[in-house]
């Protein structure tokens, strides 16, 4: 039975056959490779749709590209020429002012609204849903509505004040003088931006434990003290994030201004975004348009950094005390 013997010996010496793993399997075992391949979809989306356009925009800003003609590298020429352009400087100033005033108003009113909504009242969810409406309407549609509201001949506000209430004897020229137009635009932006602020702050308010308020009340804190010492510090982290987003959205606003005034009267309401578009596409100077857009980046970085460090620098976010 030599065959059987041999088999026994084989069984004794049997070692699990070590199949050499395929290239793919080995590759999959490699951690670095696995990380890369898992990141690939997300990264490629970011690269194709964010990094590349941003990089191209920054590159264009340093060229004299026009529509229909490839440009040459001109270094800082676009920026130098913009620095002497009063319309651009005015747009920079106005973009900052617009963002500043609109943000302050949005936060003041939004916080107030959030505090009101945080109280118990009938039809609470319905009211909260209604508050969101301005945010749901597409911006262009609300811009067109405001354009009618501010129309020099057909304004509903003028109509009510002049023809119905007889408080004024002439129609208001909302968009005809620089400051009227500026405040009108800020009002439209605030109307549109409040829901976002109010609803996110409301969410923040609801994370504050009622027991803190109870404790404060037992200690005899007045409503103002409760707001100042309980609500405010606990709302700060979310406030910082909402503020950052709100500043970014307002600073890069385009639709409201473009639909309502197109930058008029006489360029007094051009934001950097609308000016960049006007110079770049209808004006066909892509290089200059890109330079204006790129000039927004430092402001945006500054705003983000400010919000994060000035408003969000609270150690208790990680569980320790304020300092």
């Amino acid at each position: 039975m030599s065959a059987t013997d041999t088999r026994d010996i084989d069984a004794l010496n049997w070692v699990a056959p070590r199949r050499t793993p395929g290239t793919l399997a080995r590759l999959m075992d490699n951690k670095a490779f696995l990380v890369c391949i898992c990141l690939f979809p997300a990264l490629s989306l970011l690269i194709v749709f964010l990094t590349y356009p941003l990089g191209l925009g920054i590159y264009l800003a340093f060229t004299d590209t026009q529509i229909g003609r490839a440009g040459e590298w001109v270094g800082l020429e676009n920026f130098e020429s913009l620095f002497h352009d009063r319309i651009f400087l005015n747009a920079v100033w106005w973009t900052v002012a617009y963002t500043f005033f609109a943000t302050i108003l949005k936060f003041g009113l939004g916080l107030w609204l959030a505090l009101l909504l945080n109280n118990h009242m009938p039809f609470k969810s319905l009211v909260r849903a209604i508050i969101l409406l301005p945010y749901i309407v597409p911006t262009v549609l609300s811009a067109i509505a405001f354009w009618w509201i501010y129309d020099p001949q057909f304004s509903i506000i003028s109509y009510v004040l002049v023809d119905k209430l007889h408080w004024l004897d002439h129609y208001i020229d909302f968009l005809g003088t620089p400051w009227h137009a500026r405040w009108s635009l800020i009002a439209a932006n605030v109307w549109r931006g409040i829901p976002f602020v109010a609803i996110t702050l409301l969410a923040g308010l609801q994370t504050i434990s009622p027991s803190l308020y109870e404790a404060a009340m037992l200690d005899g804190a007045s409503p103002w003290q409760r707001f100042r010492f309980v609500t405010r510090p606990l709302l700060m982290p979310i406030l910082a994030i909402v503020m950052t987003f709100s500043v970014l959205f307002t600073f890069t606003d385009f639709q409201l201004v473009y639909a309502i005034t197109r930058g008029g009267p006489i360029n007094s309401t051009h934001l950097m975004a609308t000016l960049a578009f006007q110079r770049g596409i209808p004006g066909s100077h892509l290089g200059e348009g890109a330079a204006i857009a790129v000039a927004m980046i430092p402001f945006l970085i500054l705003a983000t950094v400010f919000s994060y460090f000035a408003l969000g620098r609270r150690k208790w976010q990680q569980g320790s005390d304020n300092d």
Partner: protein
Amino acid sequence: MDDITRRGSIGLAAGMAAVSTLATAPARAAIPTVDVKPPSLPLERGATLRVLRPVKYIDPDGVYFDLNTQKFAKAIGVPVRVDYVGFEDLRPQTAVAARTGAGPDIVLGWSDDPHLYTDSILDMTDIAEYLGKKYGGWQTLAALYGRKHNTDQWIAIPFGGSAGPAVYRKSWVNEAGFDTIPSDHGKFLDLCRNLKKNGHPPGFALGNAVGDANAYCGWLLWSHNGYMIDEDGKVSINRPETIAALKYAKELYQTFIPGVLSWQDPSNNKAFINEDISLTQNGCSIYFALKNNPRTASIAEDVYHAPMPTGLARSRPETATVINAMVFKHTKYPNAAKEYIRFMMEAEQYDPWLTATTGYWAHSLKAYSESAVWKSDPKLIAYRDGCAMEFYSGYKGPINAASGAVLADYVNVQMFAAVSSDQATPEEAVAEAERRAKRIYKQ
């Protein structure tokens, strides 16, 4: 370039116009032609074409354009796809086609667009000369936009132009002591003053309105013999003629309805239709919007059109927005593309299209002045010569990217708006306009 919204706002009325026009096939007049042999363009085998053009102005514009295209496909055997894009999207899409060398073979772009792409489009001289000979020659504005500046080389075939003459209420102009729109500045100012006194002020757009404000401010400048650029392409806005125009504009502005500084393209339509203003400058959309609405048809009877005052100019100081067909060099079927354009411009196709668009487009070839459309309603005569004007944006200089940028940046409009609203003296405003134009022209 004209504006979307104004046209959009007349869409409903225009749609009604379309239905009535389609129901009764437009009558056709004999177009005088000279017997000329078309250039020989042997068609490529298996040719297909893609055409990009602005969205229809009014429904028949698109309907007849498509009908003619189908006719071409049937007669010649070349399938053609026509894509309609929004007024403001046309430019970026043309730019992409030019830069990437892909996409549509033919683009019907705006007035000055072909001049931005001279390197990437085909020479059209053969068809242009053939069409010119056959149809009594090209009109002035069409020839300006079709040819390379100061040469006889054609780079595009202008299909038609849309003008913006004076639109007025006859009864109120009569009440103000005038029979029609006078042709000199002084009397025109008197007319406007009287109109205001009678409670029916005029209103001309001074906001950033692509179509209307540029039309009005172009008229102000040119009717005083002012111009932005001279023949050699040098910025020449800072001249006494411009100062005179600015002073005149300020006087005129006093008579306007309040609020024109923020007017965009649809604003004067709305105000005119609401009977708030008696006189403005516009396309024929106001008239048709009134006429096609039973409630306002009676107002339409009182609406008349006339050229703006000539003032000191030699000829009508107005311009028109032209649609200008170009063929890209990247096309695989250049002959088929040229043949398509020729086919569309021939009377059998062009005249029904022109007639169906009821005056929204004015013809670019002289012979079409005989078209039935201009006899259908005497009120449309002011629109007939849209392509016969000799003024254009960037007058008197070459048409190029810089002239387009000056227009897009509203340099001229804002100069007049600043003086009219007393935000600058004429001297300050003209200096600012000169500075801005020089910056764009890099002088």
